[in-house]
């Protein structure tokens, strides 16, 4: 059943909705990347919570005008208006008062959400509101979406992707170095406005799919996940788009076979799975990689110290050092060096002596900065330079 859903075998409508959700996920991942890089991720949480009163009021208004009240474009328009008001409130509080952005976000988010819940509760008691299904906006529900809804989703998402493509340079510059952006004549105010506009569109069209409580995850999780895999902003954007797209696709497909499950949490859990895998397995910034690198480095340090101790005829105290050297066949269990151990030890000592000459001589400054106590000096110096260094060791006063 799930396989059918994932392979888009559940009919035309479900297919359309799934593809729409995938496109939305891509748009959210891409737009959210710049929000994340600009370190304003939580503003999107304020925006999404501020949509709720607008949804409720739009419903009331449409019913009062004799309509059905569930017309999605009307509800989304209401959401957009109240989200804009919420965003402007956050901006105003941040720039014109002494409140920090975090406090402003907290205040606006809770007040607007509270107001929205009150309005929804009132609607529940209205006769026309019985079947409203507005709770779907809280956690997302793709089950009842119409073909026209899916097309709206796809068009808006495509527009967002296009806009980000056009504005990628100013968005990147504003995120990395806002002062420089301003000094070179990009208006920071306008860039931020454009970014918030893009996030607003993603949030509003994403309401029905992911729900207002969890849309922040669709904006942020893909970017955070992508950051594990690359050190280039342009690649972060693309990977985030893929992660977001997969999350939206799987979430909507699962929802198609289990309509009782809210879509938002499934989308978020898929995104989280990708995040957790990246956190563990990323070769550069992952937890596993850094543990392995640290362990390998620690072993090299122990081996080196052990060899130097052998070369100078000192006992080896640390158990880890003895174990490593024994395993490598360099010492016997009682700590006495094997022939191989003796050879390796004198090689290490020679290396260290050569290094100390190189580091003391200003003319080797370029090579000296590569000293880390582990790198063999042959990797750094040319054979000619090495001969030069060895000549100085041969001079009687240098021999230890």
């Amino acid at each position: 059943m799930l396989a059918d859903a994932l392979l888009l075998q559940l009919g035309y409508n479900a297919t359309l909705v799934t593809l729409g959700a995938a496109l939305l996920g891509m748009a959210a991942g891409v737009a959210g990347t710049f929000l994340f890089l600009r370190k304003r991720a939580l503003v999107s949480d304020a925006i999404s919570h501020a949509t709720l009163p607008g949804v409720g009021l739009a419903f009331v208004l449409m019913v009062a005008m004799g309509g059905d009240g569930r017309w999605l474009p009307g509800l989304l328009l209401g959401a957009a208006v109240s989200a804009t008001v919420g965003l402007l409130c956050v901006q105003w509080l941040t720039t014109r008062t002494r409140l920090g952005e975090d406090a402003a976000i907290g205040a606006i988010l809770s007040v607007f959400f509270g107001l929205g819940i009150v309005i929804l509760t009132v609607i529940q008691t209205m006769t026309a509101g019985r079947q409203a299904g507005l709770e779907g906006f809280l956690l997302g529900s793709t089950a009842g979406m119409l073909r026209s809804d899916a097309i709206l989703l796809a068009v808006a998402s495509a527009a967002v992707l296009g806009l980000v493509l056009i504005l990628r340079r100013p968005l990147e510059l504003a995120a990395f170095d806002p002062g420089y952006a301003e000094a070179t004549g990009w208006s920071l105010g306008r860039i931020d406005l454009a970014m918030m506009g893009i996030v607003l569109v993603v949030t509003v069209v994403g309401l029905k799919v992911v729900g207002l409580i969890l849309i922040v995850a669709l904006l942020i999780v893909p970017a955070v996940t992508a950051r594990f895999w690359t050190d280039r902003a342009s690649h972060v954007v693309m990977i985030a788009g893929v992660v977001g797209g997969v999350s939206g696709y799987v979430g909507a497909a699962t929802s198609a076979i289990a309509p009782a499950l809210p879509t938002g949490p499934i989308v978020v859990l898929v995104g989280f799975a990708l995040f957790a895998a990246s956190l563990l397995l990323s070769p550069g910034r992952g937890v596993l990689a850094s543990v392995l690198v640290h362990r390998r480095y620690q072993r090299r340090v122990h081996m080196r110290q052990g060899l130097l101790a052998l070369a100078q005829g000192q006992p080896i105290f640390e158990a880890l050092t003895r174990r490593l050297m024994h395993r490598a066949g360099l010492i016997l269990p009682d700590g006495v060096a094997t022939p191989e151990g003796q050879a390796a030890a004198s090689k290490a000592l020679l290396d260290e002596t050569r290094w100390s000459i190189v580091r003391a001589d200003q003319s080797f400054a370029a090579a000296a900065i590569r000293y880390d106590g582990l790198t063999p000096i042959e990797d750094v110096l040319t054979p000619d330079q090495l001969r030069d260094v060895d000549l100085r060791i041969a001079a009687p006063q240098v021999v230890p």
Partner: protein
Amino acid sequence: MTVTLVADRSTEAEATRIASPLAVRGLTVSYGQTPAIFSVDMTVRAGAMTAIVGPNGAGKSTLLKAALQVVKPLAGTVTVFGKPLAQMRDRIAYVPQRASVDWDFPTRVIDVVLMGMYRQLGLLGRVRAKHRAQAMDALSRVGMTDFATRQIGQLSGGQQQRVFLARALAQDADIYVLDEPFAGVDAATEKAIIAVLQDLRDTGRTVLAVHHDLVTVPDYFDDVVLLNTQVIAAGPVETVFTEANLQAAYGGRLTTARVDPESAAG
């Protein structure tokens, strides 16, 4: 350049201002109710290296930022060769303080240098081979060619500063404005940066830098602006960089500033 708080409105002063690559008049910036800089007049001489010097909290960085309108001034005007700044943005290259950005940002050295050409490239212009060549040339001028594809977080402080300078060089501007270019960099980098700046001056460009090390001012710069919220003195180093003027700018803090150049930063 004048020391008075009210701008000199004589025709001669007006002519110097029009010829100047960067002239500010009556510039005041305030965070809250206390002015960070107050009614600053500064006329930068073309083809010279000018240092802005002053004690901690004198408003040196603020003056630069306000002159480039990165910070919105409360009052005052800025002209570039006699024209409003907004029309002349592309003639100015700005090197912000190194500490002002997040160096864990996902970008490589070459990408940062290419940012210097974003104005020239516009929104959709493709980055072509000649742009890359221009960026690599800028990197080679600061001795960072080998680091082009490194992530910026892997660089030392001095290397980061060189990359910022390379980004400004890639802009190929007439005026180079630098905020504390020597703060926290190694001696080799300081030497490399000053060589690049002097080379810029010798090819007719204008350099304006916030500087915190009083000892090196006479060696590095032609002109100096002594700032302590207001302009205390401004003009050629030989005539303006005197014990009396320094005493006036630094007050009792001069001894500390001499002993520990770091304490004069900011």
